[in-house]
């Protein structure tokens, strides 16, 4: 069966875009960038207030701005972009039309309306409850309603993605199994369904509570189910950005996965072992048994950690193998030295991989350890950790992908490639530093979500050590640098869309049938098993392991010095 539509094949990348899918990918990506822009402006308010010497905003504005920053970034920017990625990984990579484009537009509209309703509720005041909105603190009903509408839209988007897989299968637009990148996107979408269901289970009653229809939502149950939503959504991000890492390795280096079995198996671990990860947000809570905490702590027996450690090896490993085949075989690291460091798609992804692993991964496992959690819970260490995962890991990866999509999807020449070239370095490295100093301040105990660490005017004021003030000052400075990096990204992408030279993106096909794709011959694709194919990556992984072990045990040492607790 074919439906009236057209396809074009991009002459640069060889990717085939279906007209309907293309418009939806563009719409979702543009909406995402708009929320990134808003979230970035809010970040300026947050950071300049937490910088003690500046202490810019008034407390009510600060809490309001922080609420909006968390939601606009973590939910709206990331999920709009992920929906675009899902459509790309299904329709474009499988070379088929998007299932039910009308419903996909409905999903987009629901998400957009939801995001606007929620933002409006926050800016109006009366909903400065932080993104977590722990009951019994209540926001306005429209705050929850906006989130619910957005979630329903995102869920519909996931089903459009699943529908598209069915279309591709039925129309036989590919042979054999789906590509690895699509496989990763499928894991992300499956996790998303679970995530959004958890979100609905807790946000719908809370919305009813805010309307006075029901009279109680238990605060502890709320925390547990909210985090089943809040944490799993981070797992969507990980599955999505790891998929993009493989994609970028493929398009920049022509890299093949070292072994499909390993990479796909690792994606499956994400699905199997993440759902109880909400546990590690509740380690300092009353009412949960030790067994429950130990068993569920940190991604259910660390199998999801294992999965990320595997991807952390196989992605750069695939790049190394590809580079070695091109002849960059001298020493352990010629392949890396000769990588295209001037291509922001590559440099962004590489900086994301290293930062995600070394900063986000190690700190996350430390925090997620039952007892160690007590020395960081709700300190500014926590945002330090997750800016390393969700900003350095996910956001920077999405930025890198955008640079690749500007000519192929948006059919524009990039304006100011010089600025784009330095953007991942500025944004990535200032974010590295920002995360490190937040973690440093958190190790000294400084609270997150706190307007005034000086407790001015309070008789019982606590005097933080000077080092804590120093760290928070450095947080402010590095934040400003990172925000400048974010601004460059927005300038280059939006500027390219508006003023970039149009380029030939391939003519629309006359027939409404896609050109199918044949699986490459086995020889052309060739898998792993070459002995010890990626020694440089292996050494890098060992360095990572040593850093991990040292940092982990240093924290046990620190814990052993605090008061006895039992």
């Amino acid at each position, binding site marked *: 069966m074919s439906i009236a539509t057209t396809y074009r094949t991009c002459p640069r990348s060889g990717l085939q875009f279906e007209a309907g899918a293309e418009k939806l990918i563009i719409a979702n990506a543009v909406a995402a960038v708009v929320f990134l822009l808003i979230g970035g402006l809010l970040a300026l308010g947050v950071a300049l207030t937490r910088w003690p010497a500046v202490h810019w905003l008034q407390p009510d504005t600060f809490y309001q701005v922080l609420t909006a920053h968390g939601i606009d970034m973590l939910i709206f920017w990331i999920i709009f972009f992920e929906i675009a990625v899902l459509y790309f990984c299904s329709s474009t990579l499988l070379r088929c039309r998007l299932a039910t484009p009308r419903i996909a537009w409905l999903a987009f509209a629901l998400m957009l309306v939801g995001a606007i309703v929620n933002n409006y509720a926050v800016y109006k005041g009366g909903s400065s409850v932080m993104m977590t909105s722990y009951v019994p603190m209540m926001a306005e009903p429209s705050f929850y309603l906006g989130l619910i509408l957005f979630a329903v839209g995102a869920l519909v988007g996931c089903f459009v993605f699943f529908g598209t897989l069915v279309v591709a299968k039925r129309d036989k637009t590919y042979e054999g199994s789906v590509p690895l990148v699509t496989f990763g996107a499928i894991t992300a979408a499956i996790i998303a369904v679970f995530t959004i269901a958890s979100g609905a289970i807790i946000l719908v009653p809370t919305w009813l509570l805010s309307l006075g229809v029901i009279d109680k939502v238990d605060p502890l149950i709320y925390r547990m189910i909210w985090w089943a939503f809040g944490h799993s959504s981070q797992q969507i991000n990980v599955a999505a950005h790891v998929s993009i890492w493989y994609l970028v390795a493929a398009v920049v280096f022509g890299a093949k996965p070292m072994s499909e079995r*390993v990479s796909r198996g690792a994606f499956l671990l994400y699905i199997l072992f993440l759902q109880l990860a909400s546990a590690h947000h509740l380690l300092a809570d009353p009412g949960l048994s030790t067994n429950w905490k130990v068993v569920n702590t940190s991604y259910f027996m660390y199998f999801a950690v294992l999965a990320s450690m595997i991807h952390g090896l196989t992605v750069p490993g695939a790049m190394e193998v590809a580079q070695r085949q091109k002849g960059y075989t001298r020493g352990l690291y010629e392949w890396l030295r000769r990588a295209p460091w001037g291509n922001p798609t590559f440099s962004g992804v590489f900086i994301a991989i290293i930062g995600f692993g070394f900063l986000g991964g190690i700190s996350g496992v430390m925090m997620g350890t039952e007892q160690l959690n007590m020395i960081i819970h709700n300190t500014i260490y926590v945002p330090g950790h997750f800016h390393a995962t969700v900003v350095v890991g996910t956001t920077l990866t999405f930025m890198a992908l955008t640079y690749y999509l500007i000519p192929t999807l948006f059919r524009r020449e990039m304006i100011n490639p010089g600025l784009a070239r330095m953007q991942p370095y500025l944004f990535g490295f200032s974010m590295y530093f920002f995360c490190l100093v937040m973690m440093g301040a958190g190790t000294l105990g400084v609270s997150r979500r706190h307007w005034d660490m000086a407790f001015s005017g309070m008789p019982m004021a606590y005097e933080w050590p000077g080092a804590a003030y120093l760290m928070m000052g450095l947080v402010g400075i590095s934040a400003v640098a990172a925000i400048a990096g974010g601004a460059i990204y927005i300038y280059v992408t939006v500027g390219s869309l508006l003023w970039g030279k149009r380029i030939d993106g391939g003519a629309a096909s006359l027939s409404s049938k896609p050109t199918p794709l044949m699986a490459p011959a086995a020889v052309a694709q060739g898998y792993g098993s070459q002995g010890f194919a990626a020694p440089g990556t292996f050494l890098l992984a060992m360095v990572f392991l040593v850093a*991990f072990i040292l940092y982990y045990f240093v924290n046990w040492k620190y814990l052993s010095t605090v008061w006895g607790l*039992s």
Partner: protein
Amino acid sequence: MSAILPPAERLWWKHPLDRVEGTWIVIAFVWCMILVFMMVFWHLYGRQNLSTETYATTADAFRTRAEAWAEKYTVRVDDTTGQPVVAPPEGGDAYIIARLWSFWPTLELEKGKTYRLHLSSLDYNHGFSLQPVNINIQVVPGYEHVVTVTPNQSGTYSIVCNEFCGIGHHTMVGRLYVK
């Protein structure tokens, strides 16, 4: 460009793996098992494990009990804070009420002695962040969390609220003495 193309062989779970991958998977797996082991080990041999003793309670019940207890063991009124300073006996109960936006009362404990510290909130979630030791515990309304504590150093400590609890959140700070 095979990560974006279908795999050459349909049965991807039969593809061979490279030795780099195999070795790393084994190492990473062993490390993950050590991570699990450490938590259990610390329960058996470590001295810092968060108690799980919890009771359902209500704001009124908790406040009534805490106030009666405070009356019994109050030793003086603190001149800087104006709060009663309460010194419970060794091994006894100690209460802290978290509410918008204070911790009440001021405790006076003794170094090396053990107390059963009861924590609850009368309204929203709050954070019990003991500084400068940096012990952080979530305080959830409706739940009374009994934590056994043994101070190991004397001095003046602060309790900072580190869970966002409304517009006065940053003014919520309490005090605790260890003799």
